[in-house]
């Protein structure tokens, strides 16, 4: 048996040839050198970046660029806004999407397939198509330039995502558990909050983090629907560092790293889930 599977592995996962190694090295370089350059620039002195014969490694590494970020009150406000809006988006999407996912997964009613189709298409609608109408609608109900308005606009793309992610997870819940809850006399509402949601907590957290990441990364709505006081970091970055064509590149790279760190932390926490979640097509590329 062991021998057999070893042979199988040797065939399905062959060793790399010399040419294969070169190709792999080239692709890994393409993937990672820009990350190196992002990091190296962030630790470089502002004046060194413009030197003609500068070294490709920061010889006098500095944390000034990071310090400058945390001394910039506008950017700190953007950072706080990012946390508020992304968290709000995640909570709203997971709660509403969780109920929807449970409904789609465990109940059968007419129109159910149409609803699934609706959310599947919802995943494909680009933000630009909603932009003008959302601007007008949020304006007419007084939610333009508010956290609530921005959270609602982010939910246009995070809700379909959480619905499908959570439906996949709830499909795996055995119906017997729900039957047992019924037999034990638990009400249908209590079943949700005392049986179903607690059983899928890891899934709820994962879906919430996906929604958080998507909200955190959005630029279009942050730029147009948030206004200067409520805008999130991506919108802030486009304004803080570029003036008349010249830019403070080390400062911008440091701020970019800071913007990326929360997502890196989430990635590490969710690494296993990412593989299947990505494969489900549930996450934008």
């Amino acid at each position, binding site marked *: 048996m062991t021998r057999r599977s070893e042979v199988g592995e040797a065939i399905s*996962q062959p060793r790399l040839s010399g040419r294969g190694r070169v190709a792999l090295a080239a692709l890994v370089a393409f993937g990672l050198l820009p990350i190196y350059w992002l990091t190296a620039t962030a630790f470089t002195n502002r004046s060194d*970046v413009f030197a003609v014969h500068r070294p490709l490694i920061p010889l006098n590494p500095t944390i000034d660029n990071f310090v400058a970020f945390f001394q910039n009150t506008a950017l700190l406000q953007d950072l706080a806004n990012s946390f508020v809006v992304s968290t709000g988006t995640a909570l709203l999407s997971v709660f509403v999407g969780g109920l929807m996912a449970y409904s789609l997964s465990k109940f059968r009613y007419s129109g159910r397939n149409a609803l699934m189709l609706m959310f*599947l298409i919802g995943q494909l609608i680009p933000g630009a198509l909603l932009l003008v109408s959302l601007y007008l609608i949020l304006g007419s109900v007084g939610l333009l330039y508010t956290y609530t308005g921005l959270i609602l606009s982010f939910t246009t793309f995070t809700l379909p995502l959480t619905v499908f992610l959570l439906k996949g997870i709830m499909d795996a819940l055995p119906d017997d558990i729900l039957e047992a809850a019924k037999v034990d006399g638990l009400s249908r509402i209590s079943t949700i909050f005392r049986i179903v949601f607690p059983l899928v907590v890891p899934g709820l957290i994962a879906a919430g983090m996906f929604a958080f990441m998507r909200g955190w990364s959005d630029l279009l709505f942050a730029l147009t629907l948030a206004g200067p006081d409520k805008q999130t970091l991506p919108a802030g970055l486009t304004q803080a560092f570029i003036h008349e064509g010249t830019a403070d590149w080390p400062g911008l790279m440091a701020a970019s790293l800071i913007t990326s760190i929360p997502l890196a932390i989430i990635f590490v926490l969710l690494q296993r889930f990412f593989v299947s979640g990505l494969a489900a097509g549930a996450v934008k590329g």
Partner: protein
Amino acid sequence: MQSSVLDETVVDPVPLVPLPESNGRGRRSKISAGDRRFGFMLALPAILLFLVISLFPLVSGIFTSLFKQSLLRPGRTFVGLENYGNIVGEFFDRLGTTLIFSISATILPVIIGVALALLLNSRMRGRNVIRGLMMLPWLLPGVVVAFLWSWIFNGNYGVINYLLNMVGAPSTDILGSPLGAMAAVVIAKTWNSFPWIMVVVLAALQTLPTEQLEAAALDGATRQQRFRFISFPHIIGPVALVAMLEFIYNFGNFDTIFVMTGGGPGDSTTTLAVDLYNLAFGSYDLGAASAMGVLWLILLGIISSGYLILNRRLETR
């Protein structure tokens, strides 16, 4: 509906969360009419939210497209199809640019993603570390990716020009030329997307029919033949699906292009999304922007049907 795709591509034998065993179809339903009503009630908040923030904006966009309306002043006047007459030529111009961008930025990451997955499917030390690190470009927010590549391609101090100068070549302002700018945004988007495709293909490769491969090897099939007739048919479905999704997402891409080129130089990288933004928030012409959106929506309907049909076919396979 998507769970069948998920089934095929589960990689980790111990996932953080339980993965679906079936997509629920054909399961005997023991649910009463009251439960059905309750089930629908649970769906209501999501349905209402979706109607208010997605469906209603799409429909009201159709109305806005029939009016002359400014972003800066309240009030609007009905102009019929005038907006459409004004923007239809522009629409097809932008559509061409959008297609060039979204097709290139789909093909390139698919090639790189598939190649990397096949290479990383070999036995080697440090394989998982490489896989993890190669996810980083996907992880970064779109604006960060765009700023990073703007800096790399920068005409004066960019590292590409630095390297060119080292070998004696003159500096070029890559983002300043129409072709260079398009190539630059495609490369940036490719770098951002290939990890996603790599992961999907790696996942599909985990479920390769090992016994079939062994039998083929015993029967004397070469490595190329085994790939051609066993591995390739096994991964082509998931690859087609992500390629389609990638194309749809690229079609609506805003952040990469807006940050790197702002649609320029000239109109050379002005895609539909950037143009729609410019019409609404640069020219303050909400009617024209909405008309652009409606034409785009019709197109999206056609493209999405393609995706849905592909999705359905892979599901029933």
